[in-house]
């Protein structure tokens, strides 16, 4: 059995806003083994980003507040770690790529300065080489080493003329190029886990393909484990081997990509797959999921999908169905599969 990297158990999270308390996560279960390429899919507001960002504890608290469950990374519960332990966890074990490459880099620092800082931070050398100690000979040497590694990394992620471009400022890069820089920073510490939060949503289709290909290459080269958060099933089909589908704050189905794409069990997964329009969709045959996502402030009782579900039964509104094994390596949370 491969090593269990991430184990999220019954994680619940609330957001305290002025409109009340939003129950954003409602008992999420998710496991990631070393070497997995997991696609976490779902629609806006289903809690997929919050779930993923709970692993490196990057969800701002407040307004968020964990109300139950645990998040284990390599066996340890990250919800109980101190700020400094979390910082080490983030710098050494987890890399994160965010959605919007336009705002992901600080506009007033050159790419070189930001990359060097990130690299030094991952070696725990940043504090010793910045601020007052910046001009010590040893610091300058460390910085020079880091700069060389940064150039090598930029070359690896496909930035042409990296040794020249590294001195440029973020606004001189296109969106695709910035995303490459951010990927380079994220993989710099050879992390155990790479979290990619909608990494291509803000990019054109052709650039999206380039970024996707880059991630796939990196996976092969440095044995990355990836958690890809997206609403695009195509990306998951192309990159991932496992998939977890979220709806309104819980994982409703998870399993191997092929199995779930070919034989989805949860009515929501089925609806989602039928709603995708491709060249093969005949005109007028597209089916959406009727209705819209429920309010997180006053979620419906029982299964949160029940009000939109065409196969809903009376017992659906009784209790939230638990995620159960419906076939080997395939879990689903739906009363239809409880027998």
């Amino acid at each position, binding site marked *: 059995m491969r090593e269990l990297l991430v184990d999220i158990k019954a994680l619940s999270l609330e957001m305290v806003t002025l409109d009340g308390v939003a129950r954003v996560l409602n008992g999420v279960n998710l496991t990631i083994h070393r070497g997995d390429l997991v696609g976490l899919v779902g*629609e*806006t507001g289903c809690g997929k980003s919050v779930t993923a960002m709970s692993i490196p504890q990057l969800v701002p608290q407040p307004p968020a507040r964990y109300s139950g469950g645990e998040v284990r990374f390599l066996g340890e519960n990250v919800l109980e770690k101190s700020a400094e332990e979390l910082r080490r966890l983030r710098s050494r074990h987890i890399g994160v790529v965010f959605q919007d490459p336009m705002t992901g880099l600080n506009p007033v620092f050159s790419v070189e300065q930001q990359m060097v800082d990130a690299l030094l931070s991952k070696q725990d050398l940043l504090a010793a080489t910045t601020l007052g100690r910046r001009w010590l000979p040893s610091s300058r040497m460390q910085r020079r080493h880091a700069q060389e590694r940064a150039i090598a990394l930029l070359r690896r992620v496909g930035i*042409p003329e990296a040794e020249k471009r590294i001195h440029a400022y973020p606004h001189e*890069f*296109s*969106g*695709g*190029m910035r995303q490459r820089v951010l990927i380079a920073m994220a993989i710099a510490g050879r992390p155990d886990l790479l979290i990619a939060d909608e990494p291509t949503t803000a990019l*054109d*289709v*052709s*650039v*999206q*393909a*380039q970024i*996707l*290909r880059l991630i*796939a290459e990196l996976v092969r080269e440095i044995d990355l484990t990836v958690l890809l958060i997206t*609403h*695009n*099933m*195509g*990306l998951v*089909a*192309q*990159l991932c081997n496992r998939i977890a589908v979220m709806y309104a704050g819980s994982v409703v189905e998870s399993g191997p*990509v*092929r199995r779930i*794409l070919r034989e989805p069990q949860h009515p929501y997964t089925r*609806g*989602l*797959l*039928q*709603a*995708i*329009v*491709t*060249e093969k*969709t005949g*005109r*007028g045959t*597209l*089916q*959406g*999921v*009727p209705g*819209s*996502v429920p309010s997180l402030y006053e979620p419906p009782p029982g299964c949160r999908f029940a009000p939109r579900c065409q196969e809903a039964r009376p017992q659906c509104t009784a209790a939230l169905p638990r995620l159960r094994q419906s076939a080997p390596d395939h879990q689903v949370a739906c009363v239809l599969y409880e027998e």
Partner: protein
Amino acid sequence: MLLELRNLTKVFVARGRRQVRAVDDVSLAIPEGATFGLVGESGSGKSTLARMIPRLIEPTSGEIVYQGQNLCHFSEKQMRAVRQEIQIVFQNPFSSLNPRMTVRQLVGEPLQIHRKASGASLDRQVLSMLETVGLQPEQANRLPHEFSGGQRQRIGIARALILHPKLLILDEPTSALDVSVQAQVLNLLLDLQQRLGLTYLLITHDLGVVHYLCDRAALLYLGAVVEQGPINWIFQRPSHPYTRALLDDVPSVDPDQRMLERVSLEADSFSVHWGGTGCRFAPRCPARQVAACTTVEPPLGALAESEHRVACHLAHPLLAGESV
């Protein structure tokens, strides 16, 4: 033809007097009752083109011929009348509705402006239009921020339809929406077209949506049309390397259809510089190139099937003076 664009061009003057040809010599024709797709990535000029048609942006040169009349010569007053017939649905349902107006005011406003109805009759029309687009009459007094993205897009559609327009310009109507909601809106658009006999100009970057809704389409690259024709030709025999690359790059939902191994486009349209001569796609083109690619701008020439036109030297070997 309901709408014809002839050599439409828009030049923006950027800072430092640099000229940007956002739309470059675009010609196309849309028959009544058809759905025409305009496909392009960011920076291709597709939104500028959309806004030029009702002259929300003034064209630099070229003609906009609507029902045989050139709109470019119309006065502001005449344009207001034409704008009853040409409506736009905007991409972003979060910014395209005035946050301080209720749904009733938003949907009723066009009728008020053109003095088509008032009082009870206006109310009746608004409520029936809300029903047409699938909203409940009880929601009429709500403000936009209380609705979800899909519902807001329905409000936008209702507002556009209430004047009974002939042409609806849909500027990325579903790109800000979730998949399950996108399907609802696409089907609503199909349904409305059948019932009301509308003509659509659909602007999008999503080839799946184009295939689903459109009869014909044009691909825009850096402001110019590079390929144009009936939808089946474009999807089955894409003849421009850019079209082929776009079709290849859409990640397929079928895990067995591997797209990651194929070579596709290099770089992106922002970091690769086109000097202004030759083919604008040449700096990124994955195809084998001929000398003319960097010297002569390829014309939008017809292929064997005369309705299918492509601007590529490789597709027109004779024009380029070289054999392939």
